[in-house]
């Protein structure tokens, strides 16, 4: 296993638990970490990239303990933070060079070559002399992944990478990640966007309120949700009632009433028929229903 997390908890100074006894094993490849905002994803990410010290528990990254062997962990780590938008006054190439140099690439010729290759790879070569702060959102994100990959890390942690990107950039970005995952790199992709996971991850975990709700493959998650999604047509009055009792995930106006999709362990009645789940349904099932059990 690339990463082994045992009994990991983290408390905020106000006593609130951000992470509660997390136990996870993360293999190499692309690993998705799904969860709503505030689920503790970012805290977990920040602990993994050594920006934060956990209150309790153990994390082992490629054989290194993140509490005592931070330097070794940092050597094999690449990180793209969630809000990667604000740059100091560096040019694209300088920023990447600085990142490379800090990661131990001290030979300037080798570094220059690696930087240029990386710029080509992420499609920023043409923009290499522009100030990073003047790039578009997608380009910034690509520069972000470039700096995280420039030293060929064994572990890449990517926090909410596609938020705010247009579909084209999002696809481009996913492809970049997929490409990287083929090079024996463990990529942890934290997101609340279900599509990011379904399209690229073979393994995943679902986090809610600081706890792991699900650990397995996206297919496994779908499987657990089978028979819990219902489709039904209701009137206005009935809709109000349904909406109170069940997790409604889709409402389409239908003549005088509504065509609804509802996630529920048992049939909500009103002539509801079972419906094949997708990952989004599974997400709702795990966050809205399973969590409350």
């Amino acid at each position: 296993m690339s990463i082994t997390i045992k009994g990991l908890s983290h408390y905020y100074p106000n006593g609130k638990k951000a992470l509660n006894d997390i136990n996870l094993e993360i293999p190499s490849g692309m690993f998705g970490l799904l969860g709503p905002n505030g689920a503790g994803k970012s805290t977990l990410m920040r602990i993994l990239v050594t920006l934060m010290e956990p209150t309790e528990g153990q994390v082992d990254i490629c054989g290194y303990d993140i509490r005592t062997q931070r330097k070794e962990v940092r050597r094999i780590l690449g990180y793209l933070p969630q809000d990667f938008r604000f740059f100091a006054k560096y040019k694209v190439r300088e920023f990447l060079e600085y990142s490379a140099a800090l990661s131990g690439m001290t030979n300037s010729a080798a570094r220059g070559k690696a930087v240029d290759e990386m710029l080509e790879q992420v499609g920023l070569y043409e923009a290499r002399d522009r100030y990073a702060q003047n790039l578009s959102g997608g380009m910034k994100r690509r520069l972000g992944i470039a700096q995280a990959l420039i030293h060929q890390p064994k572990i890449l942690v990517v926090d909410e990478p596609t938020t705010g990107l247009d579909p084209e950039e999002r696809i481009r970005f996913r492809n970049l990640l997929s490409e990287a995952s083929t090079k024996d790199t463990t990529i942890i992709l934290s997101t609340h966007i279900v599509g990011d996971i379904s399209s690229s991850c073979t393994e995943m975990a679902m986090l809610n309120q600081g706890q792991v709700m699900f650990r397995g493959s996206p297919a496994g998650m779908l499987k657990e949700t089978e028979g819990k999604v219902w489709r039904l047509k209701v009137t206005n009055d009935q809709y109000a009632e349904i909406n109170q009792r069940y997790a409604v995930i889709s409402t389409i106006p239908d003549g005088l009433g509504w065509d609804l999709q509802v996630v529920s362990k048992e049939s909500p009645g009103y002539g509801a028929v079972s419906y094949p789940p997708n990952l989004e349904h599974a997400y709702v099932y795990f966050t809205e229903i399973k969590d409350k059990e």
Partner: protein
Amino acid sequence: MGLGITNIRIVSKYETKLLVRGWFFKVFAFLALFAAIILGSIYILSQFPESQMVNRSVIPYMFMLVMNVGQAVVSVFLASEYLKRDKQLDTSEVFYTRPLSNAEYLLGKMWATLKVFFILDAAVAMIALIMSLIKYGVDLDYLSYIWYFLLLSVPTLVFIVGLSTTLMLILNNQAITMVLLLAYIGVTLFYIDDLYYYLFDYIGFNIPMLKSVVTGFSGLPRLINHRLCYLLLGIGLILTDISLFHRLANSRYSLLPWRIAAVVFLAGGLYAGFRHVHLYKMDERFRADMVELDNRYFSTGGAVAQSCELTVVQNGDSLNVRADMTVRPGQDARQLVFTLNPGFMVRNVSAVGHQVEFERLMHLIVLTFDKTLPEDEPVNIIMEYGGKADERICYLDISDEKLIENVKALSMLNVGKRYLYQNKDFTMLTPESYWYPRPGVAYSDQSPEWQLSYFTDFVVNVTPNPGLTPISQGLCTANSDSTSYTFTPETSLPSVSLFIGDYTPKSMMVDSTMYTVWELGQWDDQFEVLDSIRDTIPVFIRDIRRFMEYQAEMSYPFKRFSIVEVPAQFTSYKRVWTSAYEQLQPEMALVHERGFDMRVFQFQIMKRMYSGGRFNRRGNNNMSEKEILHNVLSAAINFMVEAGSYGGSSRNGRWTMTQVDNPYYYHPLFYNFRYNVYSSDWPMANRMVESITGNTPNIGSAMWMRRMNGLSEDEKALILMGKYGFDRIMSDPEWEDLADNALTLKTNDFFAPVSAVMGYERMVDSISAKTREKEFANVSFDSILDWIQVYSGVDLQGRIEAWNQPARLACYKIGTPLMTTVTTDTADIYQAEIAFENISDNPGYVSVEFVFYETENAGDEDKPKSMVVSVGAHETRRIVTHWFNTPSSINVNTMLSSNLPHQINMDNSDWSSYTGTELTPEGVYTVRGGVDNTAPGEIIVDNEDSRLFSLSRPLRTGYLSKWIDKARENKNEFIYEGFSDWRTYTQWTLITDQNLYGDYIRSAYLISPGDGGQYARWSIPLTVAGVYDVYYYASPSMYQNNNRNRRWNNNNNRNNNGRRVTNDYNFEIGQFNSSDRVSMNMWRADEGWNLLGTFRFEADTVNVTLNNKSGIRIIIADAVRLVKR
């Protein structure tokens, strides 16, 4: 620890890019370079103030000093800025997850900041250097550029970068960090100043750092220690930041070595700071111990040195001296005490014909003889001593605070202070260094007797280090191979001094006096300006000498006069007991190297000034080259003519004007080194005689100066004299500026009975004549007093009062002068009268001078226009004088009195004038009934009357200003404030002025205009009901003088609300609970009493209230008069 230089370099490389790309740094860099070019253009390339530039280290010092203040401020912004950036932006977090250590990251960042400033410093220094090369050529002090960079820039930057980062890391708030740091910088720059010997001066803005061309820095080890303190603290703080940095360390124990290193550096810095203070404290302790020893021995073994032959052999930086003295012991002397610089080790003491044991106690040598020495019988004593002189003995009488005070050049460069030099290449030993043994102690704070000095026959033999030239007083003869020299003064002298250095003389014999300039090195470039008028120099010398001799009414007593060049840091202090500064020695004036702080010695500049270049249009363009050079020469040799000038100084935020003496004022050369009056009862006798007979420095007492300071220095001295003994005033450093005034007042009072009998001028002439009977000899004060008694019949012995008792001040009511014009057969005679009533229990004297527009206007040139009149306790005296013309005014000086102002000028427009038929014979009459300036039926209430006059309470002010005010009030003996037009008076402020009303204190309260909430109230008790005229005492001259040009505006003033306000004072006048509002236009008011109105009053209290609502700049609450109809 794993500190990787590579990583530091990488971080610093990229962080530097960020810094220089920031607009803040760009602006600063631009300004710094721009300022350097401007400063360079003004101070180096242009012609004007370059007089100070002759000392080549001044330029790098000045540039680095200005730069340093700027960069101290800017680095605060930058240092806290990059941490703020780190905190806010996620992009920095991607760097935090890299394997570099916290130390590497932070040190890289710090180094980036330091590096850009260092580069900027280098650029500024380059500008200064290039401009200096253009101006002065290659003869520059290159090393000083590096010195000032190391001493000023490096410690300041390291410290401020460390401090601002630490604060930022602790407080986590950029705004608070900046405010704190900028306040800290402000406080250190403008307030803390020399506190704890400049300990807090991390910028190096106040600590002396000027480098002398001759002797380098003054006290370099201490300077380095001081700067090291901040360098170490700065490094310590930077190392602390590594631990404080908000990023998890690479491993659990990686911070430990940094913490240890931080503690070590911080401790080192603190130790250096402690050591800095400790060294000064030790010096003070040493000085205090010397004084204590002096106190113990000041009454032991008095003696006078009759002759003293000094044989000095210089050996490296050490001196070996043999002093062969003949001394005359005083009464009952079994022990004799000598003072010799404590740095010298005494090897041997012998007394011819006596068995003697000696004890060396710090700076004293105590000789104990086997039997009591016969009084006045000469004893031959030989002392052998050697070593290096210790500076700490100098100026034991000067307070520690004063010693540490800065000497400024070019208004911002700090020069440092040295009193003696003894190096291999340069030695300067003035009498203050006690380089030869002198009978008596050095200083005592218990008796002023130590001030007595006597004339001695000196001979000085000097064998200097090879290649050096010695200078001392007297005729110099060298042995055949010029390895040793003998100086034989033609007369006895009070002291001798010794200079040994690479001196070159430039001499000129004029009328059998040898004039020499002794240069250290060469100032040829300076002198060659005057080459073309070389042959007229004697004429100028003759002229200036004649002028001085005429002014002093004495001849120049020596056969030679030398200007001796000494290092820039040489300093001296004003002494109460002599008007001579150490800059003047018998036959000599000691001038700073290249005359660096005296423009008159910068002939090139003076020449350009006189020829009126582009930058100076004051010059007369029609002057010929020769005339210009003559002016230049004349200005230079006039440097000893002026007694002093006025200077402003700010103390505790209060601006005061003071008289600044010219230490080169020629008088001591003519008087002090030639005459000596001694008295063991009155050690001040010599100074008193000098003060009354000599042409002592007096640059006049200006009325504006009194107004600005609140009281004149004489008045302050009088207030002190009424409270404290004379000895206390003379010795308290707090009042040393007033000691001179106290002495003059005391002297004039002491001799007043004689001047009352024979007139002031005759008295002065007769005392002068007696004092000057014997030149270069010691004259006893008693003999002068005896002679005065014979001459005038006045016995002054009885006036020698207890030294330690407060003076008994008289107090006078001064009558309005009376002028009666009487037409006689031959001419109109103007009879001027004035009366004084002494309302105190102490008798006193008043000096009165009748002033005419021109001297001949008095009608009789020979008739004395001034007189001193005695006024006994509770006595009234009337002076009647006759003139052929009207005096324009009368000057009254109330001498030892508590009158305020102490001197009054009464203009004839305020006198009562009559035409009469009969003259009262001239004379001074004792009259009954006192002086009453009030008419019958008149009641006057003045602000000095605390029962009938009251003021509103001041507005509530902030705690800070209250605290500051309280701190300022501390130790303030003088309740009267200065008055100036531009100041704002938020509360009633007490001032005195001769234009104000008062019995013997002419005072009033003043306040700035406001909403009318502040008021002054006169409550006048009436015993008789009736109709009364109510008058107010106005002094428009107090505010009109400075406002004349604003007069028009003032008539149309508007207040803050845009409402039109008038120049009226607003009064309420009434009884019981009803009152009338009365206003009076104060621009049109007359000086003195002005009618407010006529009222009917009952026999009860009348309240007159003045509020502060007015358009006039100040409201003056003075006096109210009621006159019954």
